[in-house]
């Protein structure tokens, strides 16, 4: 039997039911956010009220699972109240950590709740030793969630130069990998993913059947049309199909999902502490299947099984971790 890989499995929860599902499926930690603009998945009908988060925390702790609360958008200038409230609430209810990106909020959390563990969100886009060491020195950050731009070799080299745990994305949607700095969807929706927690907000999205084709629109612009036998993708500009130089195609990113099950030992050897499964906006069926799959793989009981049907575009990649095109 393959030996157990001691990587912490950090799993998404957009609802209390998804949280319980993740815990039952074998998550070591669950990350979740409050139902407002303080977290980067501020979608309608999603996320937790204070009472739901408290109940979720009790459920997680009763099953020896940690709960990490994401307060990972950037606070509105001059009005940080909701973000401070979210951090205070996380500390009061005994969350195992807060996931932050904004240096003002990191400073607030470090000063106001020094014992509350602080993780640096991928939204901070910290990908080199100088940056990460700065966050560690200035705000006592204990873990950094690395952007998806690094190869395994680069992660190993980075880990040799920092004294902070690293968490990497293991499964889920890919993006142009400019987390925290991407304003692409803002140009057509007027909403910021980094300030309001909405990338391609649903209010700006329309799907329409035109004959056998499915057409997706964002902010009134047609950004993709899927043929009758073609897998669909998310309605983000980075996954749009455009015509340039008389050729239509995916200019930025194809609708493909990340899956690192093939390189788990490599990530462990590179000094990675935790694996993050993306998808707080996904349903509990996704959470159950993906978390169970990764739990099996980490416990040495085989691979994750077929997760392809869970992926955007129904295709998988190891992404930048194996940058074969270089």
């Amino acid at each position, binding site marked *: 039997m393959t030996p157990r890989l001691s990587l912490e499995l950090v799993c998404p929860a*957009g*609802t*209390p*039911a*998804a949280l319980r599902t993740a815990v039952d499926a074998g998550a070591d930690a669950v990350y979740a956010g409050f139902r407002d603009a303080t977290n980067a998945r501020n*979608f*309608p*009908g*999603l996320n937790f009220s204070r009472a739901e988060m408290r109940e979720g925390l009790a459920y997680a702790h009763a099953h020896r699972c940690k709960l990490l609360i994401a307060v990972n958008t950037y606070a509105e200038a001059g009005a940080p109240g909701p973000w401070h409230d979210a951090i205070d609430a996380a500390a009061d209810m005994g969350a195992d950590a807060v996931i932050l990106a904004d240096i003002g909020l990191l400073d607030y959390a470090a000063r106001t709740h020094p014992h509350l563990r602080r993780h640096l969100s991928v939204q901070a886009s910290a990908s080199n030793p100088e940056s990460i060491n700065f966050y560690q020195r200035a705000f006592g950050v204990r873990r950094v969630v690395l952007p998806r731009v690094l190869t395994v070799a680069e992660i190993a080299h980075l880990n040799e130069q920092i004294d902070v745990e690293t968490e990497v994305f293991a499964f889920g949607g890919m993006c142009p990998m400019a987390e925290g700095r991407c304003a692409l969807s803002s140009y057509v929706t007027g909403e910021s993913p980094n300030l309001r927690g909405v990338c391609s*907000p*649903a*209010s700006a*999205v*329309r*799907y*329409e*059947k035109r004959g056998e084709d*499915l057409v997706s629109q964002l902010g009134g612009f047609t950004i993709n049309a*899927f043929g*009758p*036998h*073609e*897998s*669909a*993708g998310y*309605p983000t500009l980075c996954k749009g199909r455009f015509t340039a130089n008389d050729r239509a195609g995916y200019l930025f990113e194809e609708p493909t999902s990340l899956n690192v099950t093939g390189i788990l030992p490599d990530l462990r050897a590179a000094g990675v502490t935790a694996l993050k499964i993306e998808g707080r*906006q*996904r*349903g*509990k*069926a*996704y959470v159950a*299947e993906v978390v169970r799959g990764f739990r099996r793989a980490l416990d040495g009981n085989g691979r994750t099984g077929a997760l392809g*049907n*869970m*992926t*955007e*575009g*129904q295709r998988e990649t190891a992404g930048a971790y194996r940058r074969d095109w270089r």
Partner: protein
Amino acid sequence: MKTSTPLGSAFPLPPSVGDIGRSLTQLCLQPPLTIMMRQMASHHPAIFERMTNYAAAVFVVDPTDLPVRFAMVLERRSPSLRVATDDDIEAATATIQGPIALLVDLLEGKIDGDALFFSRQLVVEGDTEAIVALRNAVDGEEIDVRSEIARSTGPFAGAMRNLIAVLESVFARGRSRLRTLQDAILEPAANDIRSQRHDIDALRDQIAELKRGGRKPRSGFSA
């Protein structure tokens, strides 16, 4: 917007017959639908709480393999679930379309909505924000549709559970046989199309070759 017949597109009927059919369908289905929605409001108040901003939204649920569509309004105090009228379909905030078994699995959280959408088994149209809110609100609950239906029949709940099991079994068998029949009819046609496509591609290649080199096409091609 797709056009509608009173009982949906699966079994289009003449208007007068359709009106009678609609009335009969409403007559039979409305009482259990009303009770079911009341039960949902009672057992799953969190759904309605999460849907507060969409209380006036009319969701049309269109099971593609049933001759009926449903209109649903998740207003906390007076929620409603009914057989969709033409007016409902016309005024729908959003429409969700897919096979009934998948819609039930989706409602029960057994299957992921995004995965269904990626694979094109689920089609959504209209106000995406309202659909996303509905999906998230429903997914946050643990719903057992068969039990909800059975409970809506009051003292006949046990008998209804058995009936649902029998209907599901019959439905699954029927669908399997229909698929076999479809394959038997469509496969030869699909083979013909594939063969023709192959011939067309070969012709295109030859034309391109002619344009490039001005040479005569190879002999021996038969379309």
